[in-house]
């Protein structure tokens, strides 16, 4: 774990996490407090990044938006990883009927365009994070299942798995101690992809008004509302866009770094 953050991407991610989770505790302006008189106010001591169209503090809104983006997409990715990997590993190891059943169910989920699925859920159960997280998780479960399943299929054919079976190891032990550590590489790649995808999907849905509910700040929504005033105040649009880009790039780099950390061959690599 220590090594994980001893890299440029790790330091940056730690910084972002610190901003997102410690920031709201600092004496920043209330992200919801309006001050219409000072709308589009430029940077000042009280509002370092200026104020938006309702005079709300931009810095404070960005910090809060960052936090909800990380919570929602990170949470969704975690949940889908746990479910997807469990299903995929069991399907790949046990084979037979359970494999056919779970893989076909995943195919059905894959048939729905993600955006459509979220819109459907938002209409049925109302928008907001409590709908968004489970739906995003559901959308990404099949990708984890497929990657896990395919990786297990390759690894289970290796002689060392047979050797472990001959030692008298139980199926649980083989799955958790022998197979799982050998498939974390592709799973990390998939996880990084899913976190990034859900950050983008979350902001996209908030942009459409289906994600985080106003007046709570979210990056997508901030981009959406700042669009109309882009000519006057480009910074209101650029600030959330830049935050989104930086978040996505740092997440990508970090997951790549993690994957390398988990590769036992790295020490001798040229």
């Amino acid at each position, binding site marked *: 774990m220590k090594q994980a953050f001893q890299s440029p991407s790790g330091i940056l991610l730690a910084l972002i996490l610190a901003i997102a989770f410690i920031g709201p505790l600092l004496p920043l302006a209330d992200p919801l407090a309006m001050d219409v008189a000072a709308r589009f106010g430029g940077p000042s001591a009280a509002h370092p990044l200026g104020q938006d169209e309702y005079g709300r503090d931009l810095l404070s809104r960005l910090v809060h938006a960052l936090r909800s983006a990380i919570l929602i997409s990170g949470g969704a990715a975690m949940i889908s990883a746990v479910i997807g990997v469990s299903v995929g590993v069991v399907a790949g190891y046990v084979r037979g009927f359970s494999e056919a059943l779970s893989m076909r169910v995943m195919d059905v989920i894959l048939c729905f365009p993600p955006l459509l699925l979220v819109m459907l859920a938002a209409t049925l159960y109302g928008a907001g994070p409590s709908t968004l997280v489970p739906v995003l998780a559901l959308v990404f479960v099949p990708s984890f299942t497929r990657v896990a399943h395919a990786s297990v299929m390759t690894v289970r054919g290796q002689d060392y798995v*047979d050797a472990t079976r001959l*030692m*008298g190891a139980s199926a649980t032990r083989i799955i958790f101690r022998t197979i799982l550590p050998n498939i974390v590489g592709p799973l990390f790649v998939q996880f990084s992809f899913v976190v990034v995808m859900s950050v983008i999907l979350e902001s996209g849905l908030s942009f459409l008004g289906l994600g985080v509910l106003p007046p709570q700040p979210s990056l997508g929504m901030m981009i959406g509302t700042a669009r109309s005033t882009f000519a006057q105040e480009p910074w209101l649009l650029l600030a959330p866009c830049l935050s989104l880009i930086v978040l996505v790039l740092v997440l990508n780099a970090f997951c790549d770094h993690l994957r390398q950390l988990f590769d036992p061959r790295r020490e001798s690599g040229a």
Partner: protein
Amino acid sequence: MSRDRENMTVTQSAEHPLLQVQGLTVGFRRGGQWNDVVRDVGFSVSGGETLAIVGESGSGKSVTSMALMQLLPRDNSRISGQALFRGIDLLQLDERQIERIRGDRISMIFQEPMTSLNPVMTIGAQIAESILTHRRIGKAEARAEALAMMDRVRIPSAKSRYDDFPHQFSGGMRQRVMIAAALACQPDLLIADEPTTALDVTIQAQVLDLIKELQAESGMGVIFITHDMGVVAEVSDRTLVMYHGDVIESGTTEQIFRHPAKAYTSALLSAVPRLGSMTGNAVPTPYPVFDIASGKLREPERRPNTLREGPPYLLQVSDLSKRFAIQSKLLKRTIARVHAVEGVSFTLRQGETLSIVGESGCGKSTTGKLITGLHDRDEGRVVLAGRELGAIPAVERAHDIQMIFQDPYASLNPRLRIGEAITEPLRIHGKASATEQREIAASLLTRVGLQPEMAGRYPHEFSGGQRQRICVARALVMKPKVIVADEAVSALDVTMKTQVVNLMMDLQQEMGLGFVFISHDMAVVERISHRIAVMYLGEIVEIGPRAAIFENPRHPYTRRLLGAVPVPDPARRHQRGAAVVTELRSPVRPPDYRRPARRYLEISDDHFVLDSGEDWQ
């Protein structure tokens, strides 16, 4: 090591050599540093001549040939020296110029016939392509020539197989296709990089014969890269021995086999399994060990027979059968079955080594997996140390039987340090404390000839031979009664092979282990076994004591197998009869197939032969 330059560049007669290489040095960049992997190599090849480059993995023999053809990545390799091919220096040519020579004047064939053919192109098209790349002729003409080439490399019924894809060909036939594609433009020089290493012995013999015949027909020069001294003796006129990037010896093949000048060459030669070296020796004997320091061969001391006659048996196998169903894609109906193992019976006594030999696809590996319980059997009984195999819980079975696998790279979990890998069984069984585990790992590592400090390293830091020792240590930790070694030494270099075989025999001596040694390498089998079972198409065709099988083979298949083994003596090159061009028949049978009743004839005491009737007339 003083090098004899004169000797190294002997040219044959006054004739101009086809290729003359001088001072070839190849370096690779690794982490910003240049590392020379081939140093100052010089040789020459004339038309009609075969030069063998011999060495173990890492000796630089393949890199040498890749450098000549400029096949190494240009950005992290550097090549210096001179390679004159018909007066042109190959190393000075740019990409476009070398492309005109590659495949046209100089051709190459590689080790893996499966990966060196394009799987989505038909066989015929691939041969025709190599003609079309270098000659301006029409498609129809190229097709005709490709067909002629297929005939020349003796692919049976070439016309009907022209439009087949590579996966429809067996390994030996694929290598013939590779040769056909390589020779399609009638090159002056053929570079063959371990062309027969991946093939079965009988197929190897056919491919070697083919290359020799084609060379006699066309008068091309051949550079034959191999690690197998037996193959060298079969094919080459002159030989170059490489060791860690240096040419340490060169000369005519006769001379090198008769009077090797360097200790390493002698070591390499002593490591070559010679069929018949065990004649008159009742007990399996370890290989003589070559002591590089003194330059002498140390014969192993005579040892008592480990075999304990009579019951109790370690393993009693009767009428073992395993079939794999081939299902139709749509309805999942069984349309045929692979009869991988059919009616196999044998016993294994204490301290005995039973070898199961045969070619790929004969069911020997499946037999190994059936008796260890890795596969479920369809029919038959396996009694392991007095108990029915199915009745032994997996946890207890681990104390009875363990396995060593063929590929030392695939049989160790890449994420476990080797100390952990060796003691993993102890943790599964909750047998030992952490300190005890460390001690056991250290003592086992010492026992298999490694250092105890290595316990903290990962498998990828070890060579193939070392990994195989680690696998042996892991198999030993449960103190099993039987070890199944599935092609355990086939992937190893010759010197490593002899070491691991000697180690196994020492362990048998100490612990009274029973080995089921599955192998296709007849020479190793002769060294290690008490008894031998020969398998063909899932059945045992002949089984008996080692001496009986080797000195009095009765089944035609056993004879063919023995006859195909290369003789490591250049003087006896032409004694081996011409190999019959055959393909292994397939054990795929229709679903309603029932094995005909089989009868075994007893030739002599304990020596049985399958009475297979007219099949083998």
